[in-house]
Structures are given as C-alpha cells and as structure tokens.
C-alpha cells in the first residue's frame, strides 16, 4: 500500500445522503402545507423503523454500527418510502414496508452499495401487492377535506386505526385511480378533468408537491449530486410515451403533463431512479435505463392493474442495470474509436 493520494476531497457518503434528505425538504414542506402534518408522522415512523432495523441487522451481521448508521443511507430509503406511501395509514404498514426495504432489499443483499434493487421501491411494491386497499386511501388536500387533521389527530389515526374521525372525512381516491376506473367506464376525459381532485396540470395538491420535488431535484443537480442524464431521460420517457398514447387514443390516455405531475414521477425522476447503487452508471447507460423506466411507468399506468407504475418500472430496470452497464462502457482514453464492450479483453 503506497498510500497516495494523501489529500482527499471533502465529501463523504454521509454528506451525499444528507444532501438528498435536504433536497426533499421543499416537497415535504409543500406536503404539510397542502395535506396537513400527516406526512411528518409517517416520516418519523419510517425513520425510526429504518434505524431500528438497520441496527438489528448490523448487529446480526457483526458489523460496526458507527460508520454504517451515520452514513444516512437508511434514512434516505425511509424517507423515500414514506413519501411514496399514503399518509395516515396504520403504523404496521410502515413497519412492514421499511422491514422489507431495509432487511430484505438492503441488508440481506450485503448492505450499503450491494443491493441490486432500490430498497424503498421493493418495500413499496411488496405493500401494494399485499395491502392494495390501504395503499389507495390518500388523504385529500385540506381544501377538499371535510375535516382538517392536526398533528395529534394524525398520530391517533396511525396508531389506533381509525381514531375518532371517519376515514371518509379525510381521504379520497387518487387521480390516477380515478382516471383509470372512470375512463374504463367511458367517462370523457373533459368531464373527468372538471372534477375537483384535478388541479391545473395534475392532481390537486400533489402537483404542487411534485413541483417542489422538481425544485429539490434541480438543487441536487446544481450541487453536482446527480447528473442530468437520469432525470431528463426519465421525464422524457414518460412524456414521449404518454404523448404517443394520447395521440393514438385520447379517450383512454391522459396527457403527458398530467403524467408528469401526478403519482411518483417527479420523486422517481430525481430521487429514486437516481439512486446510485441501483442505477446504471455509464452516461449512455443512464440514458437508456431512465428512458426505459419512464416508458414502462406510463405503460404500467395505462395497461396494468396498479394505479402507479413508477416503482415497478424502476425495479424492472434495476434488474437490467448490469447488462446495460456492460454494453455501454465508454471508450477508454487512447483506445480506438469504436464500440468496445467490457467483459472482453
């Protein structure tokens, strides 16, 4: 071991992860403002469960706690899952989701850096398959709800099931759900779009949150935490696919803008698909990976049985990453300018 370089740039995995958390704050703030403090409860719960599971697993795997607990990666997974799940769901739903994310998708794969699939998305996928009913009951925007939920109400609902308030008073179906069920009943899109749950471009309330995720994502980009490849290709994949589908059948398919600003697209584009561990790494690979994920998102939304397709699209593409990376190795300095594939000497 020679030891050089002796100077290191002042960055660390912990700070990178911390910056991701910071960049999520605008979206979270918008969420609190538009939907009440429920999200704070699920964030706290998910974080606590994540740290708990991570500690247990590190102990079981006889790994040092300090460096791994302080790398903030468990918190990032916890927050991403919390932001993908409906708020005000029962506490055990969060526990199961986080358990699957941290224990199975992350630690059993070998821990930080070794997992093939994005932990938060594995947790989400497991929940939506197992508990579809809970996963579709989203709190309505404050302006539409009959009953405003305070912080203590939120804790009450999460821990004691329904609490004193009827769920109907604060939840509503999501836009993507409504769209899917209504167009299949041949409701005209114009009629649908006039419903109160639709806002200017996407779902009422959620569109603002998505805009804030976009803002946070741009901060990540300017902070050089992510490159432009994945978000841009992902959004382009969504928009192009949605555009083509709408051209083919405007009575069945929503507009590209509606797709971009509803569900998990913005969060997925900037925060989930960009998870370095599970994303493609070469510049060309990132473009292929993210564009395909965007394409699959819209296809699953349009033709699948699940309300949103972001999680499944990203998980499917996670699976292709080794293959994509292998075929998109950049040309090495001084090598002939032709396609070369790693894995072949």
């Amino acid at each position, binding site marked *: 071991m020679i030891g050089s370089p002796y100077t290191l740039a002042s960055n660390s995995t912990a700070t990178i992860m911390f910056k991701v958390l910071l960049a999520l704050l605008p979206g979270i703030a918008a969420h609190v403002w538009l939907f009440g403090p429920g999200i704070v409860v699920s964030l706290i719960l998910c974080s606590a469960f994540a740290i708990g599971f991570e500690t247990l697993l590190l102990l079981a795997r006889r790994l040092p706690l300090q460096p791994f607990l302080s790398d903030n990666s468990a918190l990032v997974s916890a927050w991403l899952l919390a932001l993908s799940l409906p708020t005000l769901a029962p506490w055990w739903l969060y526990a199961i989701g986080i358990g699957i994310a941290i224990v199975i998708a992350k630690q059993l794969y070998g821990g930080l850096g070794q997992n093939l699939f994005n932990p938060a998305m594995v947790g989400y996928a497991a929940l939506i398959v197992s508990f579809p009913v809970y996963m579709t009951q989203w709190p309505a925007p404050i302006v539409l709800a009959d009953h405003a939920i305070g912080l203590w109400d939120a804790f009450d609902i999460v821990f004691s099931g329904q609490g004193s308030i009827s769920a109907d008073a604060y939840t509503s179906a999501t836009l993507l759900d409504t769209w899917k069920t209504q167009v299949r009943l041949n409701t005209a899109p114009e009629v649908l779009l006039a419903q109160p749950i639709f806002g200017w471009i996407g779902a009422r309330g959620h569109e603002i949150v998505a805009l804030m995720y976009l803002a946070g994502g741009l901060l990540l980009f300017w902070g050089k935490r992510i490159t432009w490849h994945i978000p841009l290709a992902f959004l382009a994949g969504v928009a192009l696919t949605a555009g083509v589908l709408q051209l083919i059948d405007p009575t069945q398919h929503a507009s590209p803008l509606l797709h971009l600003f509803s569900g998990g697209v913005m969060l997925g584009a900037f925060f989930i698909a960009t998870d*370095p561990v599970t994303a493609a790494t070469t510049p060309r690979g990132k473009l292929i990976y993210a564009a395909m994920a965007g394409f699959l998102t819209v296809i699953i939304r349009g033709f699948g049985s699940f309300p949103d397709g972001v999680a499944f699209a990203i998980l499917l593409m996670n699976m292709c990453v080794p293959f994509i990376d292998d075929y998109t190795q950049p040309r090495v300095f001084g090598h002939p300018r032709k396609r070369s594939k790693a894995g072949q000497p």
Partner: protein
Amino acid sequence: MKTQLFTFHGGVHPEQHKAESNAAPISVMPLLPRYVVPMRQHIGTPARPVVSVGDRVLRGQIVGAAEGYVSTAAHAPTSGRVVAIEACAVPHPSGLFDLAVVIEADGEDLSIDMQPLDWRALDPSALRNRIRDMGLAGLGGAVFPSYIKLNPGAQKIHTLIVNGAECEPWITCDDRLMRERAAELARGIEIMRHALGCTTVLLGIEDNKPEALAAMRGAAPPDWRVMSVPTLYPSGGGKQLTYLLTGVETPTGGRSTDVGIQVFNVGTAYSLYRAVELGEPLISRVVTLTGHVAQPGNFEARIGTPLADLIAAAGGALPGASGEIVGGPMMGFDLMDLAAPVTKAVNCLIVKSPSLFPPKPVELPCIRCGACARACPADLQPFEMYWYSHAKNFGHAQSYHLFDCIECGCCAYVCPSHIPLVDYFRFAKSEIWEREREKASADQARVRHEFKAFRLEREKREKAEKFAKAAEKSKVAGGADAGAAPADPDAEKKKAILQAALERAAQAKQTVTPKNTDNLPPRVQQEIDAIETRRAGVENTESQK
C-alpha cells in the same frame, strides 16, 4: 499567442499549496560531508559500480556505469573518497535497501575536466552518443533514460512537448526553474529539438504559474508555442498534456512517439543544457522541500544528498511533524528512512503534519456514485475495476482496462466512501504481473523439462547405437585390441562441431559486452579501461579470499 486547447475528461482540483514554497529563489545546498549515490535511479537496469572502496573520485566522475540498453550512468556529486559500496536506504515505496556508492567528500569539490560541446556542429546521432554517459533521466519523476528518448529511431518525431505543467499540489521546483533559469532551459530545449530532428516545440505550463509563463515566453524563440493550460490535475501527465496541446491521444499500451510526439520535463531540458553546454553530468537537481518545515522552498541539491540534510537546510521540521511524502500528495509515497538520498526521481519532499494531512476516514462500501468515473482522466470506470480487484477477479479487472490506469489518484481523491482505489489498482496490477511471471517461468521450466527428457532419450539412443556398433566392430576385429578401440568418427565430428559452437559463442560474447561502452571519446575510454583493470583486481582479491 492564443491557441486551441483540447480538454481531457475528468481531472480534479486539489488544494494547490504552491505559495508555501514558490516565493523564495532556489537556494543552492552547501557541500555536505557524505553523499549516497544509488545505482538504481532510473527505469531499467541499475548502473554497475565502477569504483571500489577507497578510490578517490572527482565531481562528475562516473561511479556507476550504464548496464545494457535501458540504463544510464551515475556520477560522483563531489570529490572525495568512496567509503562504501553497499545496500543503503533509498527513496522507494518498498522501503527496501538498494546498492549505492557512498562518498565521503574531501571538501575541495574538484571536478573532472568538463568539456562543453558545440552541439550545433554535431549531427544528432553523435550528439546522442555524447550525452549517453551524462546520466540524464527524466526529472519529472519517471526517470526514463533520456538518451533513449532522444533517439527517435524508426519513428519520425515531428513535435517536441516540454512539460512545465507541474500539476501536483505543493511541488514548485519546475516553476522556480522556469522563472529563474528560463534562458538556459530554452537552450536545453533547442538541443532536444536538434537531437530529435523535429520542428514543432510546444511548451505547456499551468496558468497558476504566470511568472514562469512570462519568463518562458520571454526566453522562447519565435517559432515555439508556449501555451498556458488550465490548472487541472493531472494536466501534467504525459498523455494528458499531449492531448491538451495537440488533441492527439497516445494509443493504449503505446508511447507518444508512436504518434510522432516526444515529451520531456522542463527539469530534464535544463539538465540537458548543463550536460551539453557545460559538459556537466547530472549531479544535481532542484527539489521542493515543503509542508511542515520552518522555511519551505526549493533547493538545488546534489544527487546523493541525504534527505535529512535537505530538511535541515529548510530549517528543520516543525514540532508535530508526522512523516514525509516523497513526490506530490497525489502520486507520492511515504518515506521510510530519512537517510535515503535525493535521487534523480525525487522532485519534492513534503513534511507531513496531522493538520496538513489528516488521517484518512474509514473506508465505506462503494455506492456506485460514479464520482470516480467522472474524475478519471483515462475514461475508466474505477468502481468496476475496484469491484473486481477487491474480489481478486483480476481477469475482469483487466477487461475494464486496468492497465490504462495511470495511477493519478483522481478517483480516490473524489471517492465519498474514501476507498483507496489506487492502492487496489496497484495491488491488482502487481498480482497480474506476478502471475504472468509465474506463468512465464512455469512455461520455461516446462520447456526445460521437455528438453531434458528429450536429451536423455537421445543420449540413451546414442549410447545404445554406439554400443551396438562397438560390439559389431569388436566382432569384426575379432576381439583384437579392444581396449584401444578409438572413439567412433561420428563422435569425433560432433565434438569438433561443439567446439566450434563454443568458440563462436565466446566470440559473440566478447563483441556484445562492450556494447554500452563503444563510441566513447578516448578520454572516457581510458578512464573506463583503468576502472576495468581495477575491477578485475578487486575480483581477483575477492576470489582469493
């Protein structure tokens, strides 16, 4: 002059730390009582000691002669007596000792008769022969024997690139050299141009050295291009600078000469000037001494100066020093022994302190963030190479072009998980080399074994034949005079052939041995002859013991 530059991929901006040592002029080290001149100061075969203990030497006298083609000579840095020829501490990452000639100075600093050369009058090949025994080697740190690089051979060199980028943090010896000795340096470059027979001269200097740029522009003839390149480590890497200035990529596994370009460091140009115009072999160089010392600066130190003395010349290390780095912080290594001397390769010594070089944070797993790939000037995917090196799957590491890695350290510098990536790559490379060596020697052993089996078989057969013949003969001769049966004529013939072959081999050996000493001026030849006789004497006494 504005010229287009070509930016290479990646690179990093480590803290510069140039100001510590670049303000004061180069100071010349006073004469020391003792110098240690290692025989291995260059890439290639180590020099062979040609003096013996007790000999008096003069400044500039060859104490180690070049051995073989890729080699160069080592010279006495001052006049005095050879007190030891033994394994000494040398500045090498391994910390292993290496053969050196130890000279005790007599304080008179008498020099050999140094003869300046009218190089313009000499044709390039004669010029190259004259500088072969001057001990020149690349002073940028690569220490490849210069006379070989000055010999374009079959390839036509059209462009000479002179590397004044000095991109490693902390190091300022080239900066000071360019500022203070621009005219001499320029003459060295002209000699290079003459020896290479090329026309274009490009001089690349990072834009954090405006004074050096100005000085070199002032000294440069109108047909050179002195180019300011952006400060970005590793712009001073040979391949990177070549690309920056010309847009030409050095082909993988090749040299820049494959594309008609030769690269020299400014320090080498300066020492070439001294060798040719002053007749002085390479016996000193400028070394930056910086970091946690009282007066950081640049020192013109004789080759062989113990590094402890160099530190003393800078006022000594400050309290709390925590070791030394030889070279820059990006590519250097830890000094194991302060008794090790300044060699041709030592361009910088940094005294460490915990505040300047904090201990490295714990290594965490790779999160595939790709920061390393974005920083890599060779366009590699360091994390993939790391993954496979870590798993000891060296074949795969190699398929990610491990051997295109220039070990610049950019990847490890940016890695947020603080993985010592370059250490893994050095390890993987050495393992692969080791395996190739093992394989080669196994192959050799196999060939040897097969040959031996073949020989035994043949001998058995021959013996049997001979026996049969002899038996026949004795039958014919009727058993008469069997004891004096002459060896069969076949065997006689074979013996003669063998004898002839041996003689040819001996002759060939004789013509091969003096290869690195032919074409010498008579004076040097005489000197060598004298040395050879002395050596023969030493060998005799040694074998008598």
